[in-house]
């Protein structure tokens, strides 16, 4: 299909992630069609064992290299994933990944400890992002970014181990 090729070309030259909304404007294709096209491109890349993969998450897409070539490519790419994560930042990142979008209060409820410094450093490293809580204008919600997915080598947060289990794990009502 022609729109699959169009999308592939666009994502190739753009490099960074693009939202479905922006793509509809550039390619002049309706939103549901874009979503279908993205899924199709993703399948094509995987089924034909191409060197590229498509990340689709949170209404955004990005063309990336296949995880099995990470070793090979690290020879020519600057060390963008080098810095180590401390247990505390790993723990916070995990909570954001499985439960995002999530507020700081909710994170601290689970961790039982003030997490503002760790959230800030994760924001600075680009592994999480925050946006204003639509229900509570004075507070933020945190979620993981494409850079997080790229670090782990997964296509979307749903691919995290036992994602469903951790989504449903608590019957506790954490008030926002």
């Amino acid at each position, binding site marked *: 299909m022609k729109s699959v090729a169009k999308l592939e070309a666009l994502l*190739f*030259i*753009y*490099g*960074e992630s693009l939202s479905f909304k922006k793509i509809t404007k550039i390619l002049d294709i309706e939103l549901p069609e874009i979503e279908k096209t993205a899924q199709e491109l993703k399948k094509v890349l995987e089924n034909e064992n191409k060197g590229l*993969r498509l*990340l689709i998450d949170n209404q955004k897409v*990005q*063309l*990336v*290299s*296949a*995880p*099995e070539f*990470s*070793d090979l*490519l*690290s020879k020519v*790419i600057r060390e963008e*994933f080098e810095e180590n*994560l*401390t*247990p*505390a930042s*790993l*723990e916070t*990142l*995990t*909570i954001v*990944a*499985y439960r995002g979008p999530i507020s700081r209060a909710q994170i601290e*409820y*689970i*961790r*039982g*400890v*003030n997490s503002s*410094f*760790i959230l800030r*450093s994760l924001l600075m490293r680009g592994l999480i992002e925050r946006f204003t809580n639509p229900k509570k204008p004075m507070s933020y919600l945190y979620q993981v970014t494409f850079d997080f*997915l*790229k*670090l*782990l*080598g*997964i296509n979307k947060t749903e691919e*995290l*181990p*036992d994602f469903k289990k*951790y989504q449903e*794990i*608590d*019957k*506790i009502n954490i008030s926002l």
Partner: protein
Amino acid sequence: MNYELRIKNFSGPIEKLLELIEGKKLDITELSLAQVTADFLKYLQTIEKFSPQLLADFLVVAAKLLLIKSKALLPELKLTKEEETEIKDFTQRLILYKEFKKASQEIARLVSQKRHLYTREFLQNAKAAFYPPSNVNLIILGKMMEKIFNSLKDLLPDVQKITLKAIKLEEKIAEILERLNKNVKINFKELNKQKTKIEIIISFLALLHILQDYHLEVEQERNFSDIIIKSNFKK
């Protein structure tokens, strides 16, 4: 050492509690919480010494543990409904934390596999150029410029305008001579009324120069008193 670095050396209260329970190979129940209370309070004292900032978080947990312990020791102790739910809620939280701790080890494993996905730079082959959006007009550009200017202004330290006037000795000499041409007598204080210190010094130097070249009468009663200059020029 900053706060962040300092607290990195310590586990959070929930993490510590879990450590204690697992250390004794217990399940997360009210009873096991009561069993580790003493150890937790002991750890609290280390926290107090090394990280007072973390203490508040630990005290909240310690208070809950003491309540649970009291309940275990005094079965006849009547707890309010609120306290009962609080205890139940707390055990739940601990279980929840334990699950996420486990998950974070999974995440760590994924990261260490180094199956990173690489991407191209944003518009890698595009030439750097100014691509204004189509709706840009002069008014928008002006407003944006003003916004940038204002935010930059906040970054700058307050600046006071100081003008340094250059005074030439020759000019000063000419000025004094001209005055002497008009007036038979001038006094130094009058000459330098409302002048800066530098200008007064230049005036004095000028006067010394004039004294070298012209025949003038100069009077000064004592140190730092006014200087009277009388000209002998014939009018």
